[in-house]
Structures are given as structure tokens and as C-alpha cells.
């Protein structure tokens, strides 16, 4: 009995994503890739130096979020899976922020030619 219930539960979970939805997410990813290309051809430094990188990262982050939430079914997963996903981003943030803590506080004279 429990096995049947488990099976039904899995079945319902998989129904969250239908073929049209998969195709929709795929199209979002394709548009994201095209956007990344065109954003790279425009010099956005007039906003602030490094704006191109920020835009590229924002698009990449959006695409990655789509993959994670829908292709990987995190959106419909238990809270423990959410916690794991958030924790891995937290750890990535640690790596980036502590590394930048070095780069942003260096004496520019030391490494400049």
C-alpha cells in the first residue's frame, strides 16, 4: 500500500513539468544565450567599469536558476533540498566574497607594472 502511495506521489511530482513547460524553459535558456552574445558586443563601461561582466553574470545566474528550479525539480522538492541548494550558493558566496576581500584591498602599486 505504502509503495503505491509513494508511486502516486512521484507521479504527481513529475506531472509538475509537462513537455510544453520543458520547451518553454529551454527557450528561455536559448534567449539567455543569445542575449549574452549581444550584451558582449556592446561596451557598457559607460555605466561603470566592468558592467559587461555583471550583465553576463546576471544572465547566467537567471539561466542557472531556471535549470535548477524546473529541470532539476527543486521547485517541487522538500525543504531539505531547498536548504542544500541555498547552502551551496552560500558557500559559493563565501568563496567569491573572501577572494574579493583580497583583490579589493590590495595596494594597487604592488601589482601594477
Amino acid at each position, binding site marked *: 500500500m505504502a509503495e503505491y502511495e509513494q508511486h502516486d506521489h512521484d507521479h504527481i511530482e513529475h506531472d509538475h513539468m509537462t513537455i510544453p513547460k520543458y520547451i518553454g524553459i529551454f527557450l528561455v535558456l536559448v534567449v539567455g544565450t543569445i542575449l549574452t552574445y549581444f550584451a558582449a558586443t556592446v561596451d557598457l563601461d559607460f555605466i561603470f567599469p566592468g558592467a559587461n561582466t555583471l550583465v553576463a553574470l546576471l544572465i547566467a545566474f537567471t539561466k542557472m536558476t531556471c535549470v535548477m528550479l524546473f529541470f532539476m525539480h527543486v521547485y517541487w522538492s522538500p525543504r531539505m533540498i531547498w536548504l542544500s541548494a541555498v547552502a*551551496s550558493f552560500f*558557500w559559493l558566496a*563565501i*568563496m567569491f566574497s*573572501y*577572494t574579493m*576581500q*583580497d583583490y579589493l*584591498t590590495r595596494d594597487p602599486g604592488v601589482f601594477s607594472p
Partner: protein
Amino acid sequence: MQDAITAEYSGPPKLNYLNNGFTLKSWLLTKDHKRIAIMYLITVSLFFMAGGLYASAIRLELLTPASDLLQTGTYNKVFTQHGILMIFFFLIPSIPAVLGNFILPIMIGAKDLALPRINLLSLYIYWVGGAFTVWALLQGGVDTGWTFYTPYSTTFSNTYVMAVGLGIFINGFSSILTGLNFIVTVHTMRAPGMTWFRLPLFVWAQYATSLVMILGTPVIAITVLLLAIERFARVGIFDPTIGGDPILFQHMFWFYSHPAVYIMILPGMGVISELISNFSRKKIFGYEFIAFSSIAIAVFGFLVWGHHMFVSGQSVYAGLVFSFLTMVVAVPSAIKMFNWTATMYKGSISYDTPMLYGIGFMGLFLIGGLTGLFLGAIGLTVHLTDTYFVVAHFHYVMVGGQVIAYLGGIHYWWPKMTGKMYSEFWGKISAMLVFVGFNLTFFPQFILGYMGMPRRYSYPPEFQVLNIFSTAGASVLGVGLILPLIYLTQSLISGKAAGDNPWMLPGLEWRTSSPPPTENFDVMPVVTWEAYEFGEESGLDLEGARANESVRTV
């Protein structure tokens, strides 16, 4: 229940994981965590021996200041390959993959790990990664140091950098899968009544280690991949001549490799918690503090990697922050040390071989940990960086800590794993030789390093006396490490039957037969006692059973 401890079984051999199939196929396609652990045991032992041979070559070369045994290029390869084999193929997998694999499911009352096929896959990935690395070493080896620092590794080294890197890359997946398996197992496979705060501290330590494995190992994989991209495609990532930054490599490398130190030592601390409490026959002091200190080490261990980079060109501000956090990460380790000591206080201590290793760990890890604070102090470290002080500190933690704990764990669980007792006499002799040999090898290196002897180079003649001490100590250490290979093998052939609970302990692993059956327990256990419960609450008459000690005095 008491019968399970004391009864002598005289019928035909019980079906257990060892006699449940003898064909090669039954081993190579097994999903039994115990058989997989045994295959890991054999493989990591081979890597340990290979790494030990390289260590012997290093110590022989350093017997004199001149390069009379190895040419300089060969010497670079020898210390590099010693580091790579020992760290990636012995220290990281040994306790989790051997002892964790074998004991963790039994300790929590599970039939197996949650993902048995993934467990077998993990072993195969380890074999493939190891084989790839060994092939690369046999082809000519690598000379970058185990740290693969750029730009030497990307631009200048003409050795098998990428082949070895690929071996490490592959091996990382084994580590990730093992960690994943342990986390899922602890969450989903605990026996009825086995609450989180009844888990043995070895399980808490393995759980914390698994978190580090999963969160850290992908970063080293990416780092090696970026190194390959730069080396082959000349994309500027780390090489400043093409727009890269070599210090970025160090950030990425140490983001994994410092927590990797905790992958190595945390499981060892778990073993020591078992040994100290059980051989003091006393409930461990401050269970919750020890459990959460493992988690704290896993978390804070990710915040201190910059202390490997104080003189790399990293900013002074970053150095200050990393120095402060390094002092913070010492606190949970100190909590463990204090609690182990408090556990022994007024305990009924028995000096069996595993306990000798346990006590040895406490002394050696104390020295290793405290000298780490010297190296974490941002001023003093400028003098000590890249000297033998660092080599000594690292070996006090890794050999004095992890290897000693691993040996203690092997001796402790050997009767359970094999159903046989080894010679206590030779066990104690070996433990003492390892302790004496280890100190004779590495303590002089603190003095040498403080006096300015650089690592990875030769040395001026005035340092020779201490180097002779060190090499002599390495010989004693070598004998101490070879002895277990002999008497443990001998025990398999002619050792006395161990019985189910030779140490008279309350843990779940001691309530099943030795060797355990394929499904670990004949009947699913229901846990009604706290961890390390030696009183009547454990449901066993441990003191009565302990009176029958004949099995232990071989």
C-alpha cells in the same frame, strides 16, 4: 542480549559478509558496504606503501646536504609524488572510505548505505583515478609540488601535470559520492530509536566530513579544469603574461585544500572520540559540544584558506582577517581535546592497542594544532613560511593525527571486520615504535625550520645532525608501520576468534556477530540507550562480561 556478548558459538560457520560468496565476481560486483570497505582498505594500503617509499627516498636523500642519492629534478618529483599519493589517495579516502564505509551503517543500525550502487561506483572511480595517476607517475611523473602552483604548473613544467591533474579530477568524484552517500544514509537509514543525539560521535564526524567533501571537492575539480584550459588553450586565467593572476589559483586551490585538511582529520577525531570514551569505559564528557564542534570545524574550515597565502602577495587586510579566523577555528578543536581529557579523568582506562593510539593522537595532535597557531600568526609566519617548520606542523597533524587515528581505528574495529584478534603484544610494540619514531622524525624538523631550513631544497652542513636524527626516526617509524601489516595478516591466518564483543562495549556494532552478516543484523535493532552508555541502561551486563578477558590477552 547478554548472550550476544559472552556466548561461544560452536556450530558450523555462520553466514557472514566474508563467506557469502568467494568468486572474484562476488567481490567486484558486490553492493555490500563491508566488502567495498575491504577493497578500499587494500587499495589505500597500497597507496600508503607507495607514498611511504617516496618518503623513505626523501629522508635518505636528506641524510647529507649534498645531492648524492637523487638528482635535483628527481628529488622534485619524489616529494611531489609523495604528497600527491599520500594526500589524494591515502589521507582523504582512508578513514571515510574504509572505516566509515564498514562501520557507519552498522553503527546506526542500517542494513547498508542508502545508495549501495553509488558506493560501488565510488570505489571504481577511485580505482580509475588512482590508475590514471599511477600511469602518469610511471611515465615520468610530475615535479610541481602537490600544490600545483601556477605559473610553474601552467607554463614552465614539462612533466605530466595534466595527466596527474586528471587523475585527481576523477578521484574527486569518488570523494563527492562517498560524502553524498553518508549524508543520505545518516538522514534516512537510522534504526528505530537512533536519534541524532544517540549517534556515536564517529558518525557525527563522518557527517561533518561529508559536508566538506560535497561543498569543497567540486572547487578543486574546477581549478584543475581551469589549469588545463590555460595550459592547453593559453586562455589567461592564472598566468599574468596573458592576463591571468597566479594568486587566483592559490585562492581556488586552498578553498578546497584547506578544508581537505579537515576531510583528513575530522574522521580521525571521530575515531578518537570512540577510543577515548570506550577505553575509559565512561560516557563521553560533553557529547553535544563534541558533536557540534565537528560541524563548527566543517563550517569554519572554509573561512581560513588565506592563511596558506600570507606571503603570496595577498592583501594585508585579507591576511588580517584570515589570521583572526584561523585563531577562531582552533576553538572547536580545543573543545574536543578538553572533552577527551575530561572523559579520561576518573575513567577506568585500559591500555589496549587502540587506546595507545588514542592517547598518542592526543599528544601529537596537540603539538600539531598549537604549532598551527604559530603559523596562523601573521607576523611570525613570515619567518616560518616555506621552512621545515611547516613540514613538521603538517606531519604532526596528518601523520600524528590522521594516520595514528586510522591505525587506532583499524586496530579497534579489526576484530569486528575480520572476526579475529591480533597479537596485543605486537600491537603495543608497534604503537610505541610509531610514537617514538614519529617524534624522532618530525620534532627535529620544527627546530630545523625555525633555524631557517627551507622545504623542498637541500640544506647547509650545519643542519646535518638534526637531519640525521630525522632520518633515523623515519627508520623506526617505518618498522612501526610495517609491523601491523605482518601481525594483522598473521591474525587472519591463525588469529584467535574475537567473539562478537571483545572490548565489552555498548555500541551497536558490538551487538552483531563478528564478522557481521551481510545485512549487518539478524533482527533490526531498536535503540533504547544513549551513546556510550556503560550502565544497566545499555541493556548489557558489560562489567560481568568484561571479567572474561581471556580472548584479549593473546
